[in-house]
């Protein structure tokens, strides 16, 4: 019987890692589901769903040459693979400013307290090493839409964090 695994692989970034992993999984007869690859601080990171009849040990064995070749830290976890259940975000929150500790903690705490469900988050540090800037974009869902975040965002503003919330109106045609 087929089941889903979540594969998490992290290492030094080099061209060709995704192709090598995808090919190894394909040759092993595994089917990929949703996946997300992103460079974080110059590191290669990927999380991907794979469906296979193999045990987690044999799945790992099938990937062993690539894991070794690219020096990847690897996690393989059995998961429930629920496809076709995307939630549609209705608000995007963006934050940017001078980087300092605690921004993510304060913003996400305020959002959680307002009942905001984070569906997608990415954050980046840009600028220079003397003057780092922090940029974060969060998509999520909150009952009442963007205006439900007016108060929490005003409270963040009072603490020196500028966060904006705009509605995401998904057009269906």
């Amino acid at each position, binding site marked *: 019987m087929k089941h889903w695994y979540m594969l998490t692989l992290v290492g030094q970034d080099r061209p060709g890692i995704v192709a090598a992993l995808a090919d190894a999984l394909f040759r092993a007869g595994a089917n990929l589901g949703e996946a997300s690859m992103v460079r974080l601080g110059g590191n290669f990171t990927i999380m991907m769903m794979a469906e296979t009849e193999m045990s987690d040990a044999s799945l790992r064995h099938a990937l062993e040459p690539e894991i070794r070749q690219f020096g990847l830290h690897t996690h393989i976890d059995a998961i429930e693979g629920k496809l076709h259940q*995307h939630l549609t975000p209705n608000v995007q929150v*963006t934050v940017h400013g001078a980087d300092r500790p605690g921004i993510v903690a304060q913003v996400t705490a305020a959002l959680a307290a307002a009942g905001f469900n984070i569906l997608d988050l*990415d954050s980046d540090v840009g600028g220079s090493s003397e003057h780092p800037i922090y*940029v974060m974009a969060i998509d999520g869902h909150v009952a009442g839409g963007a205006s439900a975040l007016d108060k929490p965002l005003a409270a963040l503003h009072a603490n020196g964090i500028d966060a904006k919330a705009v509605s995401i109106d998904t*057009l269906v*045609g």
Partner: protein
Amino acid sequence: MAILPVLVYPDERLKRVAEPVTAFDARLHKFLSDFNETQRAAPGCVGLAAPQVGCPQRIALVDVSARPNTPNNGRLLLINPEIIERGGETIGREGCLSVPDYTGNVARAEWIRLRSRDEHGAPREYRCQGYEARAVLHELDHLDGLLFLDRLVSRRDLFRRRVYQK
């Protein structure tokens, strides 16, 4: 009247370029009545194109009039529509009856002017902006065999453009 079945991608018929309407006759009017009913029956749906219901003709419906604070031209029946002018660019999130369980960001013109025919073949001209322009462009893409999937931009683009616009 009847509610027509909506084709779902990867149905190949969604990738075909539709043909102009040449006969504004009873057969067309019968189709339009079913087409109207199909669009009204789909919850939250602001537009429909004939190829989505398996009719390979250049016919689309757009109606954003139910949305609050949205400039609009009422219920637009567009036959053989053509964009004659467009301007600006804006990114927004789109989904599609023919692409269930997926939404993505798409760049569209901020405003458009278009020419089309009504159900009797009489020429019409409209100016649309914002959300209505997006809906019209989404439906007109269907007439050219394109889906919003053909125009996706990443969510990071959305944010970067918004930041730089300020």
